[in-house]
Each structure stands twice: as structure tokens, then as C-alpha cells.
């Protein structure tokens, strides 16, 4: 009898552990929204979302500069990181000798394990050094003085591109491996070259997985905080919309929260939670797109 009782107790306990994740997600959503929504009601959704001035001391809470900063830096990071990540994945699956894969794959794992503050510190010196000598050297006559510090969108994007590489490589790798062998064999049997087979057959066949990989990379770049804070300059201004904007110091939504939470008064705190809501919405939209993609693929 006691064995049956034990069985029941264990099952109940395990059930409780299993729904912890569900409760955590709900609690996180509820708390971010409870704390952040009042600011939207008080100052108007449009003024908060699209206001270009962030000046908490005078109760002006426009988070548009941070939205633009986040999108800009993420876009550039993906532009660098996605082709590189997919390229490495193709290389590992199709071309590299096993001996070489055995070096690259652990290296990618290790890249994923390096703490973001260490990336930040590296960026503050190594990458910023290169960028600032560009800004003060050949580009000096085109850039305004405040765009010559080395703290810039490009600096942050380069660091982010490296940080999202493991995500993009690992998931593209799985997608490419999942392509049925017959596709490749059929194409090669027709006399098509290996490279043509890769870019006309294999990559298109793995398309939805590769897109998922890139979207998850976007999610990581959007959400990264510490590495970005340390290299982006943190100026809450909308960067220039031509190519010089690459060299503009900016501020991401994540940085906005992390920088100011320590000393914020009650209303200022709410505005930071509101920034969190916008970030949260970005992530929800991204996750929904991924889920849709995975489902569409499953139906096929």
C-alpha cells in the first residue's frame, strides 16, 4: 500500500516541478506589464513609443531612440553574423574533414560559453581601437566630432555578430543535416557540381531551419545587454539615417534598463519597465514567427 502512496506523492511533486516553467512565464509577463503599463496611459502610447526625447529628469520618456538603436544594431549584427554562421554550417556539413570539424565545433561551443561582459571588455579595447582609428583617420572629414569616439553601433554590431554565431551555426547545422541524402545524391547523379548542389538543392531544402536559426540569432542580439552597454556609447539619441549612422553612439533598449534602474525614482522605474514591455513584445513577435515556421515545416 505504501508503495502506491509513494507513487502518488512522487507523481504530484513531479507535476508541480513541471508546471513551474508555465508559472514563471506567466509571472514574468504579468509583472513587466503591471509595472510598465501606467506610463503608457499617463503620457500616451504614441508619445512614449515615438517620442524622440528621453529625459527622465524632466519627466520626458520617449523611447524611440532606443527602439531605433536596438533595431539598427541588431540589423547590422545579423548582416555580418548570418552569412558567416550559415557559411560555417555549410562548411562543417559538406566540406570540412572530420578532423577539422572536431576543432571548429568545440570552438563554437566555447564562443557560446564566453560571458557577455568578457565580450564587452574585449570590444571596449580591441574592436573600439580599430573603429576609432577608422573614425579619426580616413573617415574623419565625413563624421561629426561626437561620432569619433569608437563607441558606436558598428562596434556593438561586430561584437554581437560574434556572440550570435554559435546560435546560427548550431541550428543551421541541424537543418542542413536533416536534408535527406537522396536530394544530394540525385543532384550529384545528374552531373551537377558539389557547390551547385549545395546552393541550389541543400540550402533551399534547409531553408526553414536556416531562417529559424537567423530569427533566434535576432532574438539573442535584441536581448543582449552587457556587451552592448560596454561598447555602444549609450547616447539616447536617434542615430543619423545615412551611412554615418554606423559610427554613431546610440543606446539599446536593454542598455536603457540596465543603466538607469539603479538610481531611478518610481515614475522613472515605470518608464524603464515600459521599455521592457516593448522589448518583450519584440521577442513575442519573433517567437511567434519561429513557431509558425516550425509548424509549417512539420505540416510538410
Amino acid at each position, binding site marked *: 500500500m505504501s508503495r502506491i502512496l509513494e507513487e502518488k506523492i512522487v507523481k504530484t511533486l513531479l507535476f508541480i516541478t513541471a508546471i513551474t516553467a508555465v508559472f514563471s512565464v506567466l509571472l514574468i509577463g504579468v509583472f513587466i506589464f503591471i509595472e510598465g503599463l501606467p506610463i503608457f496611459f499617463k503620457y500616451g502610447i504614441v508619445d512614449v513609443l515615438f517620442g524622440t526625447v528621453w529625459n527622465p529628469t524632466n519627466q520626458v520618456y520617449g523611447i524611440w531612440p532606443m527602439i531605433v538603436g536596438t533595431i539598427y544594431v541588431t540589423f547590422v549584427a545579423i548582416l555580418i553574423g548570418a552569412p558567416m554562421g550559415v557559411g*560555417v554550417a555549410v*562548411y562543417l556539413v559538406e566540406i*570540412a574533414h572530420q578532423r577539422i570539424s572536431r576543432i571548429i565545433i568545440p570552438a563554437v561551443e566555447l564562443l557560446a560559453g*564566453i560571458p557577455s561582459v*568578457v565580450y*564587452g*571588455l574585449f570590444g571596449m579595447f580591441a574592436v573600439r581601437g580599430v573603429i576609432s582609428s577608422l573614425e579619426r583617420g580616413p573617415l574623419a572629414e565625413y563624421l561629426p566630432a561626437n561620432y569619433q569616439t569608437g563607441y558606436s553601433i558598428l562596434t556593438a554590431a561586430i561584437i554581437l555578430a560574434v556572440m550570435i554565431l554559435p546560435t546560427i551555426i548550431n541550428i543551421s547545422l541541424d537543418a542542413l543535416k536533416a536534408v535527406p541524402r537522396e536530394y544530394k545524391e540525385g543532384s550529384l547523379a545528374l552531373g551537377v*557540381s558539389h557547390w551547385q548542389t549545395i546552393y541550389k538543392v541543400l540550402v533551399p531544402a534547409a531553408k526553414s531551419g536556416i531562417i529559424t536559426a537567423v530569427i533566434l540569432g535576432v532574438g539573442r542580439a535584441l536581448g543582449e545587454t552587457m556587451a552592448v552597454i560596454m561598447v555602444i556609447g549609450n547616447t539616447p539619441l536617434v542615430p543619423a539615417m545615412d551611412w554615418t549612422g554606423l559610427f554613431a553612439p546610440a543606446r539599446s533598449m536593454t542598455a536603457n534598463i540596465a543603466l538607469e534602474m539603479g538610481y531611478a525614482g518610481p515614475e522613472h522605474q515605470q518608464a524603464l519597465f515600459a521599455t521592457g514591455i516593448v522589448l518583450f513584445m519584440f521577442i513575442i513577435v519573433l517567437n511567434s514567427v519561429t513557431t509558425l515556421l516550425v509548424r509549417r515545416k512539420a505540416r510538410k
Partner: protein
Amino acid sequence: MNNVVRNQKIAFACLSGLGLLTVLVLIFIIGYILSQGVSMINYEFLTSNPRKMGSEGGIFPAIVGTLYLVGTTMIIATPIGVGAAIYLNEYTARGKLTSMIRFATEALAGIPSIVFGLFGFAFFVILLEPITGGWSILSASLTGVTMVLPTIVRTSEEALKAVPDTLREGSLALGTTKWQTIKSLILPTAMPGIITGLILSIGRVVGETAAFLLTLGGTLLIPNSLLDGSRTLSLHLYMVAMETGAMDMAFGTAAVLIVLILIINLTATWLFRRLIKRFS
């Protein structure tokens, strides 16, 4: 036809270049941090207290804080994460409930760490202050638990799935209960895989900064209890680099972090290899 061959040669050369570049980037980052910071590391640096806001002295409180935080987080997260994996893999058929739990786990994995920080701040630091002591190791650990949960659940589930069904059936046929089978047969078999997940989670806690910036308090004092504030090595690195401006201390701390992460990753890889051997 010559064109096709040439194109392929160029393309393959480019792709090999990318593969090489990835490894070089890693070597460059680790080499740069170690070359700047390794000379800072000595017995005194590791065992003495910081002076002048961390611009002089050592990093002892940050080491203690890291150990406290990792320990507390893992003690709470391990039973929850492994338990959830057991429930999902051993006790339920696929259904609405399990797909909801899986969805929530996926969603948790995608939430940015600063959002975890906001949540931890509003819930554990402010609302539950009488229990958690406000900014404290406990508040930060509970926040950390929600962050590492997806990793533990996912890796434990993989490990459990890899245990062959014949083991389960054989044991049940001998008249043992389900829980006895799991406890004395399934879990020990899946253990290397589960431990790999736990080690990866430790790495995540060691490297995390944004969430702890809002929940751990960041004091330089050595904590006396879980209700005291503290700072981890990562948090210390950020604070001395950005607030104190003591770059030699920042690089020293970064070098210690890199060494820690290398040890953690190598252990995880070694365990994972053993796991693969066991099942093949």
C-alpha cells in the same frame, strides 16, 4: 565546365576561410583577455578584499559571491528542472498539457536576461522583500532559477530519452513500481547527460550579469547569509570597468572568468563524450 570547377573552388575556399575565421576569432578573444589579465592573477589577487571601490586589492568577495549564487541557484533549480524532465518524459503521454509546458520552457529560453532582471526586481526584490531581504543572493538565485530552467529541462529530457525502453520494461516486468524503476535504474543511466546540462547551467550563472545587476545589489562586502547582497565575478568585471574605470582589475577578473569557463566547458565536453560512448 571549367567555370563550374572554378566557381566551386572559389566558393569552397571562402567557406573554409569562414571556418578558419571562427576559430581565429575565438583564439584572438581568449588570447587578448588572457594576455592583458593573466599577469594580475596571483594568490593575493584571489584572496584579498578590494580596496578603493575595486581599483586596488583583490576579488575575494566576488569569488565568494559567485560560489554562493551558483550553489543556491543550482540547489533550487536542479530538482525542479530534472523533476520536470522526468514528468514530461516518463509520466505523461503527449497532450495539451505537455505541449503547454514545452511551449513555456521554450518561451523562457527566449526571454532576454534583462527582462528576467526586471521581473526579479519587481517580484523578488520589491514584493517579497520580507522573505528575500530585498537585493540579496536569494533574490538573484530565484531569478537565476527561472533562467537556467529551460537548459536543465531540455538536456535532462534528452538524456532520459536516450535510455532504451528495454531497461524500463525489464525492470517493470520484475514487479517494481514506476518510481523505483526511475530512481534506481533510469536516473543513474541518464546521469552523465543530466550532469552535462547542470554544468552548462553553472556556466550560464557564472556568465550572467544583466539579471543580477538588478537583483543582487552589487555590494563589495562578503555576504554572511543568503539574505545579504553580493556581487559575482561578472558583475564585478562590469562595475570596475564601467564605474570605477580600473581596467587592470577588469582584465584580471576577465582572465579568471575565462579560466573558469574553460574548466566548465571542458568538463561538460568530457562528460558528454563518456555519455556517447556508453550508448554506442
